[in-house]
Structure formats: structure tokens, C-alpha cells
């Protein structure tokens, strides 16, 4: 039980990734698929920051009064996740613009009908 309490974060992040994967695979509305893509992104970010966490240490900012040898958590996953969040919002907005264009052209957002309209 103590071991499971240690890895709550991994269970939560992994669960979010799995829910996002299910929404991308099994849903038929284009907006739901894009919501699943957003969950995949958020789950991966939580997983990365949780891997870089060390117990008993503090945030990686050496403010006034902190000595030079204070123990801090890992700053590299946080920098990578910062970049990834901004890229995620760029990809999501472009995907939504494309789905608006698909709706203008086909009149529906159901992926089964959109594939059927191809020659």
C-alpha cells in the first residue's frame, strides 16, 4: 500500500494518457478526437515533471537568502515541458482551424462520413 502511495503520480499521468489514447481511437466526432489529443499532451507533461521530482528538495530558484548549496529538484524536465506546452497549444489551434474548414466543406464532423465522401 505504501508502494502504491509512492506512485500516485505515475498512475494519474498514465491514466490520463490512456484516456486520451482511447478518445483518439474510438470516438467519431472530430472535436472529441482533438480533445483526446489535448489529454495525451497533458498526461505526458505530468509524467515528465513527476519523473524529475526528488523528495525533500525545493523549487529550482535561488532567491534572496538561499545559500548556494540548497538542494533543488531537476530543472531540465521543467524546461522541456515548458517548451512542450507552448507547442501543444500551437498544434491544437491549427487542428481546430482545419476542422472548421472540414465542416465548411463537408457539412458534417463525423469521421465515418468524411472518409466515405472520398472517391
Amino acid at each position: 500500500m505504501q508502494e502504491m502511495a509512492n506512485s500516485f503520480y505515475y498512475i494519474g499521468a498514465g491514466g490520463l494518457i490512456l484516456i486520451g489514447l482511447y478518445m483518439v481511437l474510438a470516438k467519431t466526432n472530430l472535436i472529441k478526437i482533438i480533445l483526446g489529443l489535448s489529454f495525451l499532451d497533458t498526461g505526458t507533461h505530468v509524467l515528465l515533471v513527476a519523473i524529475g521530482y526528488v523528495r525533500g528538495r525545493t523549487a529550482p530558484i535561488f532567491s534572496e537568502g538561499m545559500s548556494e548549496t540548497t538542494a533543488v529538484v531537476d530543472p531540465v524536465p521543467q524546461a522541456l515541458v515548458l517548451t512542450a506546452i507552448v507547442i501543444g497549444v500551437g498544434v491544437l489551434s491549427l487542428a481546430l482551424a482545419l476542422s472548421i474548414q472540414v465542416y465548411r466543406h463537408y457539412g458534417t464532423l463525423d469521421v465515418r462520413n468524411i472518409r466515405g465522401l472520398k472517391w
Partner: protein
Amino acid sequence: MSVIEGILILLMLVAAVATSIFKDLISAVITCAAVSLLASLLFYLLDAPDVAMAEAAIGAGLTTAIFVLAVRKTKRYEE
């Protein structure tokens, strides 16, 4: 402290499942914003204030607004 973390993670997973179930797309987008907000709280509890600020401003604010604008121009209810 692990009780608070456990409750927040459980709420996040429940909100994610609710997004997948709702048929009204505006409700689904609002629960997606709830997932982003809870993820931002988890980032703060993991000693990452930069990432928490970025996720709160971008994920819970701008992404929700862009989703609502996109749903407004297409259908509101999923068939």
C-alpha cells in the same frame, strides 16, 4: 500530504472520463479546462512553479477559449 495529492489525481481522472462521456460539446470543453486546472495544481505540488504558471495561463485559459470558438462555428451536439 499524499491524501491531498491522491484526491486531486482522482478528481483529474474523473474529469477526464466525464469529458469522454458528455454529448454536449461545450460541457466536454469545460471539463477539459477542469483537467488543465487540476494538472496545474499538481505541477505546483511537484515543485515546478514555472510550469504551473504556463499550464494555467495557456492550458486553462487560451485553449478553452479557442475550443469554444471552434465549437461555436460547427455543431454543438455530437451525434
